[in-house]
């Protein structure tokens, strides 16, 4: 089972350089401009083939935007085909997982949540560094790390919700 990743260069679609670091404001502005030209709402009175074509284009832009604006998805997109995580990383992930499982009280849960959030931010900063220095194998490793941190953060949020209820 695998998600298919768009074959087109989504950076090119947005007229942006193929880089991890990007200006979020600029990305959003380009997104709005692209959708203003192809969103199905602009073609309601057109013929069916035109509507279908615009619809596909609009969907493609939404798919690309979803990847571009999310640092993890963006990194994964840039690193398709790069290696597997190192044993050190796997050990780190196992340790965090264990702490997460053991966090029982609300206080412990909040500490874990803050930990996950700050590690995520650090990880994104690392990614920016690795991509800008073209250290792609490091970037690939960091991306896997970010993926797990994101998953932890979601899990701990859910735990917090159920603990509050």
């Amino acid at each position, binding site marked *: 089972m695998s998600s298919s990743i768009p074959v087109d260069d989504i950076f090119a679609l947005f007229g942006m350089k193929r880089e991890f670091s990007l200006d979020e404001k600029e990305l959003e502005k380009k997104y*709005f401009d692209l959708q203003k030209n192809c969103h199905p709402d602009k073609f309601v009175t057109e013929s069916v083939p035109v509507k279908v074509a615009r619809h596909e284009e609009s969907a493609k832009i939404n798919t690309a935007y979803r990847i571009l604006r999310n640092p993890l998805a963006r990194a994964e997109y840039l690193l398709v085909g790069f290696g597997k995580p190192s044993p050190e990383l796997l050990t780190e992930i196992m340790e965090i997982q264990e702490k997460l499982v053991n966090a029982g009280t609300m206080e412990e849960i909040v500490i874990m949540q803050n930990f996950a959030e700050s590690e995520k931010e650090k990880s994104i900063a690392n990614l920016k560094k690795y991509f800008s220095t073209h250290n792609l194998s490091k970037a690939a490793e960091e991306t896997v790390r970010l993926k797990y941190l994101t998953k932890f953060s979601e899990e701990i949020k859910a735990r917090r919700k159920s603990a509050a209820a």
Partner: protein
Amino acid sequence: MKLLDITEPGQHSIAIGIDLGTTNSLVAIAENGHARVIGGLLPSVVAYEKIGKISVGEEAKKNPLAIHSIKRRMGNAGEKIDVTGKKLTPVEISAEILKVLKKRAEKLLGYEIKKAVITVPAYFDDTARNATKDAARLAGLEVLRLINEPTAAALAYGLDKGAEGIYAIYDLGGGTFDISILKMENGVFQVLATAGDTMLGGDDFDREIAEYLGCDLYEARRKKENSSKEFEKLIAPYIDRTLQICADLIEDSGIQKNEIKGVVLVGGSTRIPLIKKRLKELFGDKILSDTDPDETVALGAAIQAENLIKGSENLLLDVTPLSLGLETMGGLAEKIIQRNTPIPFSASQEFTTYQDGQSLMKIHVVQGEREMVSECRSLAEFVLSGIPPMMAGTARIKVIFVIDADGILTVSATEETTAKAQTVTVKPSYGLSEDEIEKMLREFMENARADITERLLKESQVEAEIAIKTVNDALEKDGDLLAENESKAIESQIASLKKLMKKNDRDAIDFATAHLNKICAPFAEMRMNRAMASVLQGKNIDAIAKKL
């Protein structure tokens, strides 16, 4: 759809906006960016009278068998509902409301209207969206776009007040609750996240109050406005639930509460003072209720209808409210499209066979956030057949999900290793087929051609009959309330009405019926007072205390 295709003059390419609500519906129209409602609120009540006459709105409310809150059943569009003498689907019943709204607009504008933007709760699932579109087609309306109610409200509010920044739209109607977070910027209305509950609304408050007081829903609705401490206690759990949904959404969306510039209140139920009070506690002093909560949604729909027809600089970017996925091994739901994804959208996932020589694969499409398929909404199930014999794990089956701008899903599956791809496209299982819609439209047209004069006479006769029966029943139960001369007057009016009913003078019958109703009005009031008194007597204080 040929049947209703009447050529229209070019200059009349106009589309209406419709708020098809649980309790009330409303139609609006926009010209040059200025929207206005046509007529007042139309109660979303449909009654099937004895001889084929269908009444909608205030008129229908008088019929004890009338159907209320049909919108709550749109998610179960295949359901058959018993109405006088036949079984109808929620789609057919909703279509009656739309027909009346369409006619209202046509009467005002003087020409036929064929296009509309219709609003749906943001949290409506795929089935309910399809059902709404089907109902519109049945009413002779092409749906230009389904838009989400909070988004429509934001459009009306934003354009009206020139709002910029991040806003929350809190929409509590008769039957549904939605909360959306939107960013409005330079004419772009971008929905960031949305959540809600399609089974929570003012109707629930009315029911609680009615149960508590032992009165009917109408009475409960009137009393609700008073907002006494007791009623607040009754409805507080529902309000708490909406606030919990708001808090969760803010947390999930990653937006800080202080980034929200204002909370726009939409839906008649937001008039309840307790709601404003509780929202202030959550959001601070940013509650905006300076537009009519009953009208905002219809006005937004009308603005969007004009935008779509005439073109506009504004852009509406909405999201899908619920995750969409597939059933995988062990009854787990695998999400293909996450909730709050911008629409239109397409995504695909590859699957493989798990047995040697497997030639079939079941594809089960589900909607919802839960991990187990059994806890998600099942949208459709189909089988991809003709997979060529291969070793387990070698076939490549690509499943593609496409959501259109109305939030409606289409799924297709293809076996990709063979030159000849097998594709199955699925539409949700509850939607009506093209044939069914055609057949219903034909029947509708034929009914319309029936002899109108005869039907009107029969209607008058039936109405007279109902009036007489109602009065006789009342006399039997509470006749003792009347003085002798009063009951005599009523009885003689009944006798003369009975005589007229045998003749063919419709106007005379109508007049006599109206007169009977008029002279019985004081009697009805006396009966109401007696009923109220007995309700209050019947309740002892302990029972009331227990309920609190």
